[in-house]
């Protein structure tokens, strides 16, 4: 916020009525200094968008009343490039990502915190758009950002904005999920088409721009999880396949439970547009990130009931079964290809990189 903006701040501040931002204003080092510029940024930009009774008190810690059950706590940092992409931006991603980490362990989200590392020179209008997007994502999920912090680093020492969100939630006593609970015979379910988020982000990345109809699947899935948990039990564990995609989280779960998983390649749902983009770039959709999907390992006897509950939710209409947990000889994920032979679906050594030719 510029000097003029800061002067305006004290007079024009009003909850839920964001003050007009000076068009070309940018983040200055002083916005992180803890003084008047910082206070102006909080009052004029963050509070009007993220306002709630707990945050508005501007206390050093937020007081949150919890329900009964086991408290869970999670944290995640967001450094996406570009900051805006079809179907979302770093703000909605930071809110939904942390809510989803709470949801997949069976928790009801209670509250979020958000810490911003801002680069000197970052456009304040863009920061406002990101805060607005966080507000909308939090509102849609019925969860509030109750604590926040802002720091500014010199130009060149960050990439616009980095956001770290943390979240707390409560798992009701009757819900017991865990990555070590997958058993031989269990069904492996996915809540919808995979890879949308990763392809949407890549389509907007500098040097790689391509036209696609794919938007990010970025969304909060905790109401989908609520429906699944209410379907009568049988869920062993769930995970949201973000970084590293479905293949990576299945490997993690196989290792935690000491089981082999057989995935049927032709059963894995992938949109045509995502498949096409992956073909062009030489990527495997099984390793491409999702931000509004979940993978669930469930008791085979309950699989149909849980699938029905998933399909009854707008975020789970494309839910399907993609594989089975087997005993196997070692913890690993095996892919049965379309023609019958199998191959190991291993962890990637690094990031998937577009091919040369």
């Amino acid at each position, binding site marked *: 916020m510029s000097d003029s903006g800061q002067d305006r701040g004290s007079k024009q501040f009003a909850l839920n009525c964001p003050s007009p931002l000076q068009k070309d204003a940018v983040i200055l080092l002083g916005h992180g200094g803890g003084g008047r510029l910082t206070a102006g940024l909080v009052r004029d930009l963050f509070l009007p968008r993220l306002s709630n009774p707990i945050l508005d008190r501007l206390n050093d810690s937020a007081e949150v009343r919890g329900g009964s059950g086991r408290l869970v706590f999670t944290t995640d940092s967001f450094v996406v490039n570009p900051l805006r992409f079809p179907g979302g931006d770093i703000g909605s991603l930071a809110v939904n990502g942390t809510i989803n980490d709470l949801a997949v362990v069976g928790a009801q989200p209670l509250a979020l915190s958000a810490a911003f590392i801002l680069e000197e020179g970052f456009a304040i209008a863009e920061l406002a758009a990101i805060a607005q997007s966080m507000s909308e994502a939090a509102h849609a999920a019925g969860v509030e950002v109750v604590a926040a912090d802002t720091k500014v680093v010199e130009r060149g020492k960050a990439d616009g904005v980095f956001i770290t969100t943390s979240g707390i939630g409560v798992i009701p006593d009757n819900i017991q999920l865990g990555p070590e609970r997958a058993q031989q015979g269990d069904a492996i379910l996915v809540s919808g088409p995979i890879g949308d988020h990763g392809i949407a982000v890549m389509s907007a990345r500098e040097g790689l721009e391509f036209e696609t109809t794919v938007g990010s699947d970025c969304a909060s899935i905790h109401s989908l999880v609520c429906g699944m948990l209410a379907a009568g039990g049988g869920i062993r564990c769930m995970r949201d396949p973000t970084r590293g995609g479905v293949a990576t989280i299945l490997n993690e779960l196989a290792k935690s439970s000491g089981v*082999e998983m057989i995935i049927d390649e032709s059963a894995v749902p992938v949109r045509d547009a995502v*498949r096409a983009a992956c*073909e062009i770039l030489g990527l495997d959709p099984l390793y491409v990130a999702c931000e509004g999907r979940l993978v669930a390992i469930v008791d085979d006897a309950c699989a149909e009931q849980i699938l029905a509950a998933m399909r009854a939710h707008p975020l789970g209409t494309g839910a399907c079964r993609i594989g089975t947990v087997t005993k196997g000889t070692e913890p690993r994920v095996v892919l049965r290809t379309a023609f019958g*032979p*199998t*191959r190991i679906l291993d962890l990637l050594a690094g990031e998937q*990189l577009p*091919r*040369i*030719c």
Partner: protein
Amino acid sequence: MKFVDEFRDGGAVRICLERIRATVTQPWTIMEVCGGQTHTILRYGLDELLPPEVSLVHGPGCPVCVTPIEMIDLAIEMAGHPRIMLCSFGDMLRVPGSSCDLFDARAAGADVRIVYSPLDAVNLAERETSREVVFFAVGFETTAPTTAMAIVHASRRKLPNFSVIAAHVRVPPAMEAILASPGNRVQGFLAAGHVCTVMGIEEYWPIVNKYKVPIVVTGFEPVDLLQGVAMCITQLESGRAELQNQYVRSVRTAGNRSAQALMADVFEVVDRRWRGFDVLPRSGLGLSQRYAAFDTVHRFGLKAGRAVEPVECQAGEVLRGLIKPPQCPAFAKECSLDHPLGAPMVSSEGACAAYFRAGRLASVGSEAQ
């Protein structure tokens, strides 16, 4: 998805397999030249579906794999200079040089950028006029036209700060070197469809005639590869050696004449050392006299040394089709995706990486099969 689904169709795959089974009467060894073909074979387990008489060996057609270590050392050395911005394709950054790779160089402070097209590097040079932008150009005849186009653009825009480490190579000399080597096992080739899309197919006739081997120009999908194998086996069983084109939906006999003209203008054919092969006559593409100003080596008066490859890594034997990756003593032991010793374990088209990723280290899917 049109032009993909029909070439991955289970029914079509079965028909090709039946044709191969009905034709084959004795053991044959066929090499697929291109790393993209190797990955399709391993990805779909096509080699497991073939009758035991048909043995596929994997060729040198991975651009990252055949780039000699001294070229990588040269790129790493260039990247270390403060004014240099070194650009290349992502896979190149992971390939180990003598002491480190380009990712290590970047972590140590070098300005190393991943680009998706050589033209991106030209645009960077135009934007960053105080920097020397060096594009590390690797690849076969498939990617060489894009490098040629980048150099023509840089020349037209009169960019004094753009140059290229030209490590492009040509496929036919490598195929000839394989056939001429004393331990050669290859009896037929599936030639690289994308290379032939650019270059056409005529330059393979002399190899067919000299060595009496069938060459089938082949695509990259499961049905393409099995059709290519079927065409090759049919020739072998009937004692014929001909040049055939399976990949007719992409490859014209004369190839892409515009791309060829561009390459002829920008490049000249030179002798080039390959990883695993030593120097192959007329196998490389260096910059022509007309564009010598854009040659990094020429501009900076560089001289590539001669690097020593790790003794335990048998990448050379893998690239010549003499052994399969699991036969290398270092495979899945000292050498893995996390700690690659040789480029075939690094590249997305490398044969060792294909075997490692597909889990061809032990029996697979015990309960599933």
